[in-house]
């Protein structure tokens, strides 16, 4: 192996290397001081990079947080459990049936319920916030608020405008909401400081302009609510 190739391979994330390349690289660095020194620097940086102590109670705090998030959904079920208990007592079916009703629901079930609550809460929070900005509470498309990520003022060119951000695994959608004519809108494709590129379109409704921008790899449909059966 030449030093050129060796240094090329050293620069590649280790996960990209085939076992053969890995072995050839190791063989080369054992016999070449220049490449050995580069590899040693990388190894030292790697070691320092992951040398971060993790707080001992962190896992438990994360567990507690996840449990309390689910408790919201659980509370709504409590009414059902009480009704179940009353029915058991009336029918004299006893403790076995009670414990069946009292058994925790499947996680997936509770998560779904919790999600629904979350969606509604977020949609409402966005609506209230828009109202506080003197804007209509509803967005012009049926957005999936499970993807809601952020609302507040966001930069658009040199202006700071009310903005609702939805984020999906594949990218993001920003909805800027402004009174029509307040700002000259950008044209063509544009990017942001994180390097994302966006395509956008505007919707006019009752004197309000909605500038909807979606990042490369997504379309507006990605962020819209599908029928419950599809989720």
């Amino acid at each position, binding site marked *: 192996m030449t030093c050129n190739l060796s240094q090329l391979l050293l620069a590649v*994330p280790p996960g990209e290397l085939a076992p053969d390349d890995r072995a050839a690289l190791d063989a080369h660095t054992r016999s070449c001081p220049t490449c050995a020194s580069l590899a040693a620097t990388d190894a030292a*940086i790697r070691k320092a*990079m992951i040398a971060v102590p993790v707080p001992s109670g*962190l896992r438990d705090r994360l567990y507690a947080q996840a449990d309390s998030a689910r408790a919201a959904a659980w509370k709504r079920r409590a009414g059902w459990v009480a009704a179940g208990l009353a029915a058991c007592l009336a029918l004299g079916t006893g403790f076995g049936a009670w414990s069946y009703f009292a058994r925790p629901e499947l996680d997936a079930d509770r998560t779904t319920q919790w999600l629904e609550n979350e969606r509604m809460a977020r949609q409402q929070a966005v609506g209230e916030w828009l109202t506080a900005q003197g804007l209509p509470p509803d967005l012009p498309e049926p957005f999936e608020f499970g993807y809601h990520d952020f609302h507040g003022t966001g930069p658009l060119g040199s202006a700071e405008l009310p903005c609702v951000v939805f984020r999906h*695994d594949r*990218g993001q959608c920003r909805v800027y909401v402004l009174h029509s004519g307040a700002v000259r809108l950008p044209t063509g494709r544009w990017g942001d*400081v*994180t390097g994302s590129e966006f395509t956008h379109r505007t919707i006019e409704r009752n004197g309000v302009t909605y500038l909807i921008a979606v990042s490369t790899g997504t379309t507006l449909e990605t962020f819209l609510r599908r029928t419950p059966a599809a989720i």
Partner: protein
Amino acid sequence: MGTPSVRDLIDSHYESLFRYAVRLSGSAADAEDLTQETFGKALTRLPQLRDADRAKPWLFRILRNEYLHRKRDDRRARVVPLDAVGEPTATLPADGFEIDPQELQAALAELDETFRTPLILFYFEDFIYRDIADQMELPIGTVMSRLARAKAYLRVKLSPLHPTANSQRPPEGE
């Protein structure tokens, strides 16, 4: 294959997420906040995670986005002109070369996030170019060139032969 439970996700990934958050933010308190927020968001978006094997890059991406939201205002505050940095010319000793994690943190803090993240993910080892590119919503070629420049910067900065290596300012944090 079913969706993993949130507890599974926590067990498998909370440590590396926390480490990433520390390296990204320079503060253990911020890192804990970011880690909590990440799992909170992950819980609401669990249906988006179609491939459980992709959970790690998915979580890292949520964390990074959360970090960017919080830091948006001072993102451009400290940017090192990477073009001015070259490869180290001197040969470093191959053995017994240690880097102080605090010094590393200080060097990272001087970098713009767009260079810091690929660097951290590269040294976390289990990320390939595709993962880094996906997380940053960038083409792979851009990731490769940023990574190369950021690594060159770091090597010079942390090299024991570098004249300013021992005069770093203290790491970020309150």
